[in-house]
């Protein structure tokens, strides 16, 4: 997922995906309910810069997932816990994880009975069919990318208003079953059922973007209030009865408030003074304040790795980056130790050269673009190699060409833009920088008609699968020439690696381990082709009040706010 609207703190929750357990709070008494019973109740107040936009589950792309995942349920769920266990799929509205049949194209689910939405109606299997048809009817942003493999989906994409998935998703309300028929095997289908887009909503939900009038859900909380200029207020869903502590546990706070409008500076001060409980922000906290969080409030500052890459996309279709030597030269020249300072130093970002982030399926450390690389490149980045970069540029014969960097007008976009402008000038190019508002920049660089040469981009995971990075960012499928919808900003389409990706996707249905090895090979293949300059993998800082306990990070949803204690 690409991030934009930084400064408006849009993509709050998913920006904070993390793997490592945090430094404090999670050790004591979190396991069983009895010892934690005393922590039930209270109001958790989160501060963020701006409202997350529409909370329509089919439409919202990450800005409200931290709220949505405790209001709604999918058939599947990621275990609500920290660490690698947080990536484990468990059945949620389904009673069990089905074994696919029909050459891995059919998934038959039994749906739990007596589950009720917050409006009192009972969950029916036909709601599942309706949820997916609705996703196409409201033009869900991922309807095409993730769910076009369901039988009947291609027609829905072409003509949303008449979407009919009754052949692809067969619901039987009396037998309490839902059966999915896919057009081809999909090793990641169960993951896709656990995403927020696939959260099940009642059939009575309108087939239009509900905006801030949230739909009822089956989770432990419900949207009580959403005033776009003030706050979102979640309260307990009176009809919720815990059915699976792993998939959807009962929460601790009685009320969760997400208040908007306070700038980060003010938000940090309020949390320091314990007037609010946490700062939620997609962009990094102000450099001004990190020092005091680091020293004075170290015990309340949680540091977590994000499964994301910050990179410069190099457009391989236009000069000079259509020359592999030039792309490799920039990779050799980029001083990732310097770039890491943009994010706040080595504690907040880890230098990287490859597409996949650490701890991801298929990740094997690889960095050929460093001075004195490890054998076979299988080691960390150490230092830039300007000499090599210069000789590559000289060999490419592209010296003196003009390069325009198009970047978002955010602190990150500005700093990286100025850095690479200087670097490209040093390598002998005539570089200039063009800064656009974040929302505009995001749309602009994704439009392949604009032929943007180089831009700073961020990619966060949608879910933990190597394909979620490699396919959209470097696969032929993601590259759309002459189109406004080109996610593959590098416009990189190598038919060999793309064919490998298809093989890996097919392989992981039956042999995930072998598939991961293949993904690692593809990661190296693509990195060698250098369609991007990967700068670093970021970490995320969460600052909480003194009364917050049991702080837990989930790699999919970010902080599990329902699991934190405020008393």
């Amino acid at each position, binding site marked *: 997922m690409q991030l934009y609207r930084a400064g408006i703190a849009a993509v709050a929750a998913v920006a904070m995906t993390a793997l490592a357990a945090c430094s404090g709070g999670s050790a004591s008494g979190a396991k069983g309910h009895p010892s934690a019973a005393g922590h039930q109740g209270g109001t958790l107040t989160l501060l963020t810069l701006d409202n997350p936009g529409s909370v329509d589950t089919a439409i919202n792309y990450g800005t409200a997932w931290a709220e949505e995942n405790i209001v709604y349920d999918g058939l599947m769920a990621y275990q609500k816990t920290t660490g690698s266990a947080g990536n484990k799929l468990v059945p949620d509205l389904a009673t069990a994880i089905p074994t696919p049949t029909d050459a891995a194209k059919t998934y038959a689910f039994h749906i739990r009975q007596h589950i009720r939405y917050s409006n009192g109606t009972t969950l029916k299997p036909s709601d599942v069919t309706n949820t997916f048809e609705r996703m196409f009817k409201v033009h869900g942003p991922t309807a095409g990318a993730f769910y076009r493999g369901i039988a009947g989906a291609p027609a829905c994409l072409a003509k949303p208003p008449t979407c009919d998935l009754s052949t692809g998703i067969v619901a039987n309300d009396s037998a309490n079953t839902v059966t999915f028929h896919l057009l081809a095997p999909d090793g990641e289908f169960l993951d896709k059922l656990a995403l927020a887009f696939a959260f099940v909503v009642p059939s009575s939900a309108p087939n239009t973007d509900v905006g801030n009038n949230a739909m009822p859900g089956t989770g432990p909380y419900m949207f009580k209030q959403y005033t776009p200029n003030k706050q979102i207020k979640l309260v307990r869903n009176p009809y919720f009865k815990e059915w699976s502590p792993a998939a959807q546990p009962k929460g601790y706070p009685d009320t969760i408030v997400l208040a908007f409008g306070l700038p980060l500076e003010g938000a940090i001060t309020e949390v320091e003074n314990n007037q609010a409980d946490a700062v939620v922000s997609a962009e990094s906290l102000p450099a001004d304040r990190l020092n005091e969080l*680091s020293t004075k409030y170290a015990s309340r*500052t949680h540091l977590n790795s994000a499964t994301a890459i910050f990179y410069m996309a190099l457009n391989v279709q236009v000069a000079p980056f259509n020359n592999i030597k030039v792309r490799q030269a920039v990779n050799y020249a980029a001083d990732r130790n310097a770039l890491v300072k943009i994010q706040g130093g080595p*504690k*907040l970002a880890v230098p990287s050269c490859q597409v996949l982030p650490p701890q991801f399926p298929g990740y094997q450390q690889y960095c050929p673009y460093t001075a004195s690389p490890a054998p076979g490149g299988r080691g960390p980045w150490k230092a830039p190699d300007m000499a090599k970069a210069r000789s590559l540029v000289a060999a490419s014969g592209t010296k003196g060409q003009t390069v325009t960097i198009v970047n978002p007008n955010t602190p990150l976009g500005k700093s990286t833009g100025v850095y690479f402008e200087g670097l490209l000038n040093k390598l002998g190019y005539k570089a200039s*920088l*063009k800064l656009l508002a974040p929302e505009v920049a995001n749309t602009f660089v994704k439009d392949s008609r604009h032929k943007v040469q180089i831009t700073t981009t961020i990619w966060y995971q949608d879910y933990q699968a190597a394909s979620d990075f490699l396919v959209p960012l470097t696969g032929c499928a993601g590259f759309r020439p002459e189109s406004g919808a080109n996610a593959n900003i590098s416009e990189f389409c190598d038919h060999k690696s793309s064919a490998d990706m298809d093989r890996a996707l097919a392989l992981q249905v039956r042999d995930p381990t072998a598939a991961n090895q293949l993904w690692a090979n593809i990661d190296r293949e693509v990195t060698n082709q250098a369609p991007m300059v990967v700068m670093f993998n970021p970490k995320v800082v969460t600052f909480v009040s003194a009364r917050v306990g049991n702080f837990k990070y989930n790699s999919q949803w970010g902080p599990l706010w329902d699991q934190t204690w405020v008393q």
Partner: protein
Amino acid sequence: MTRVEPSEQVSLPTENAARPAAGGGPWILAGRRLSHNRSAMAAATLLAIIVAVTLLAPLYAHHVAHTDPFGSNLAGRTIVDGKHVDVLQQSGGLGLGVTPIGPTWDVHHYFLGADSEGRDVAARILYGGQASLLIAVGAALGSMLIASVLALVAGFFGGLVDTLLSRLMDILWAFPVFLLAILITTVSLTQGLRFGPISISTSGVVLPIVVIALIFVPFQYRPIRGQVLTVRERDFVKAAIVQGASARWLLWEEILPNVVNTLIVFLPLVMGINLLVESGLSFLGIGVQPPAASWGSIIGDSQNLLYTRPWVAMGPGIMIVLTVVGLNVLGDGVRDAFDPNVRRLVPAA
């Protein structure tokens, strides 16, 4: 941003300013009056010093501070109290975040400290001054030129042309002026600035000059048109027209001298306003585009450093205030010099 109408701040020179007076032309006379005005002379000196200092920016950057004021210097090191240190220093404790070094008060090494890219703030303020002053002058001349041409056309032809132009200006007048500037700028930054086939680069100082010049046209148009009409209505001009005086005579001998006088009186004050508008736009990140800098954009870039490194914002801020004060005092002086009958806004200091 307040809406400041130059037309309201100064009283227009009345006709005696343009009429030849005893003892030399009006300009010589005005110059003589100006040179006797001590506060105006002090302001002129201050402005001259500011201009000179900003022009010396390359000298300072290359030969005194040995620094590149525009290039990223994230991994840079420097010398403080004889010790080599990082320009961007790591926090203690958990080690989150980096902080640029503060003022060293050593002209050779980061006199006013560094900004978040590790660049020398003092050198940037000097270069930023060049951009700010250039925009102030360029936009003032630009808007005056456009407004004068339109006003001359309107005043000269009168009738329908005048009505149409004046109504158009009235419509533009109703635009929230600073918001209009924001709108034009953001649109232009996306796709470049285009007037039909002509496309203008948005880097550097061109875009702010064009935008600020455009938004102030309606404000300058009104008084200049009034000036043109006043001249036309004068008895001896009317008489000359009746007697068949040529349009060229009317333009060159009667109207233009008056308009030019008005413009000269406006110039310093308009420059002051332009400087403030430019700094506001650049502060919002939509004025001068990086890596170029203006005083306003340096302040805008320093928002993340406001509390730890206040000098990054206050340094260019002081320069803005000094320059605008100088321009206002000089402007008052110029007006008094052209029209000694108008009472002065500023008491002689």
